[in-house]
């Protein structure tokens, strides 16, 4: 299990002022969960994910995996970025197999595993294409397959579908729900869409900015239904979904002046 304990990050801005990006944030990412961090722009979501990934060191606090502190990136935490980070000089198959190559897995074996993952994300026909010949949604799917290839315990996703049009986005959400149900990974997922948070999260952390902290926590299980039926429509109109959505909306929008000033 992954635990975040009192995670605090302070940045020094260019003008010398201190930015309290994250303030004593604590939560767990239990097995078989999708923990979603939800909040307006600038509330420290990416900072939190980068800290878990090991890209960002904490000013205070700890990240623990099964009780052991981590402070470096590692293959146990796969990352899917908002902007895709595929290598343009490698084809889709080599991109997915990259982590296995780093581990020294022989070519045939890593291609075999990569092909399985491409099948999982529905891109078997594109393995020889360079990434720049794929659409944004397809690239994001390659990114997910690549992150899964090293068989991480946990998948960290920073607004992975934020740049996609709403149709593609819904397809990707469905894909993630299915992949999660199949692979049983723990997922930490960042979004600023309340509906996406509720559709995908088993645990939802609502964050607020300045300093970045968790202001509300919810549990939900719409994602299980979503994974089983593959249909978001009925979930969106479910009474409990609607009432949670409105409740979270009111929390996020309460300190409106506060958020807006920061989002600029």
């Amino acid at each position, binding site marked *: 299990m992954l635990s975040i304990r009192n995670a605090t990050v302070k940045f020094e801005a260019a003008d010398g002022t201190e930015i309290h990006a994250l303030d004593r944030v604590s939560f767990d990412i239990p097995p078989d969960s999708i923990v979603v961090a939800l909040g307006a722009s600038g509330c420290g979501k990416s900072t939190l994910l980068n800290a878990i990934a090991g890209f960002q060191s904490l000013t205070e606090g700890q990240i623990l995996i099964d009780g052991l502190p981590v402070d470096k990136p*590692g293959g146990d*935490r796969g990352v899917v970025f908002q902007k895709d*980070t595929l*290598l343009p000089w490698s084809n889709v198959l080599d991109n997915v197999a990259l982590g296995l190559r*780093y581990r020294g897995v022989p070519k045939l074996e890593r291609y075999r595993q990569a092909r399985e993952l491409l099948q999982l994300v*529905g891109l078997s026909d594109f393995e020889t294409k360079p990434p*720049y010949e794929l659409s944004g949604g397809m690239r994001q799917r390659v990114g997910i397959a690549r992150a899964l290839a090293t068989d991480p315990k946990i998948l960290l996703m920073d607004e992975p579908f934020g740049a996609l049009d709403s149709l593609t986005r819904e397809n990707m959400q469905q894909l993630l729900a*299915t992949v999660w149900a199949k692979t049983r990974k723990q997922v930490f997922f960042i979004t600023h869409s309340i509906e996406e948070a509720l559709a995908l999260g088993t645990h939802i952390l609502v964050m607020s900015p300045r300093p970045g902290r968790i202001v509300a926590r919810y549990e939900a299980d719409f994602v299980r239904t979503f994974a089983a*039926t*593959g249909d978001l429509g009925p979930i969106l109109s479910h009474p409990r979904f609607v009432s949670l959505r409105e409740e979270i909306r009111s929390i996020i929008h309460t300190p409106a002046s506060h958020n807006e000033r920061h989002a600029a």
Partner: protein
Amino acid sequence: MSAVIEPAVAISEVKRQRTQQPRRIKKTHGTAVISFATLIGLLALWIIATKYHFASALFLPSPSDVAVQAVAVASEGYANGTLLDHILASLGRIGVALAFGIGLGIPVGLLMGLNRWAKGILGVPIDIYWGLPPLAYLPLMIIWLGIGEASKIVLLSLAAFAPICFAAQAGVRSVPQERINAARSLGATSYQVFTSIIFPSALPEIFTGVRIAIGATLSTLVAAELIAAQSGVGYMIMSAANFLATDVVFVGLIVIAIFAFAFATGMRFLENRIAPWKGKL
């Protein structure tokens, strides 16, 4: 039910991109045709200008004179050597200088991009000499190294080194941090991050640097040969100018233009082979 998504949509998207490509290729063909027509036009102007004696042959020899002279220079030679001798002398100098410039510029530039200390220490001397016109320190090179090949090779190598070194540095600095982070979270060691991410990411910039270096080397070469050499295309041009042999001067200039064109074409070819993704992602 089991969710895996609209391949139809996906495939049609790829098709659309594919059908866009031929149109772009056609467009570049169009440009090539226009460029070629311009070249023919210039040649025609030249022929007309000499045919109707707009300028005396001393200033503007006719294309046929130049062609005849080219054959003569190639077979009988001019200024202690045949055209081929001069070309080989010049190409040899460029080749050696580029080999030094590339062989040292890339590793030093990469190191300076990666390491603060290397940048701090090496940056200053490189900035200083790169700011100087090469011909300004050619006399110093000659005092130090003599009038022979060594002074010219060092001068040209310095001219080639700096742009490649700067480009390699810029290439390293332009690697998106997310790409490096992605590799590290996939378990890459520092060495693997360098070989699989940083170096290939920097390649397009390095190519640009090499292209600039070729231009710098070529102009420095000709200038150096004009001043201090006993062979080479630049020397041939200078000797011809002393005797007002304008047609031989033209032969030399055309040879240099062909050098420049061949290098540019060769670089473009290499770049398309080695870094075809440039500007794509």
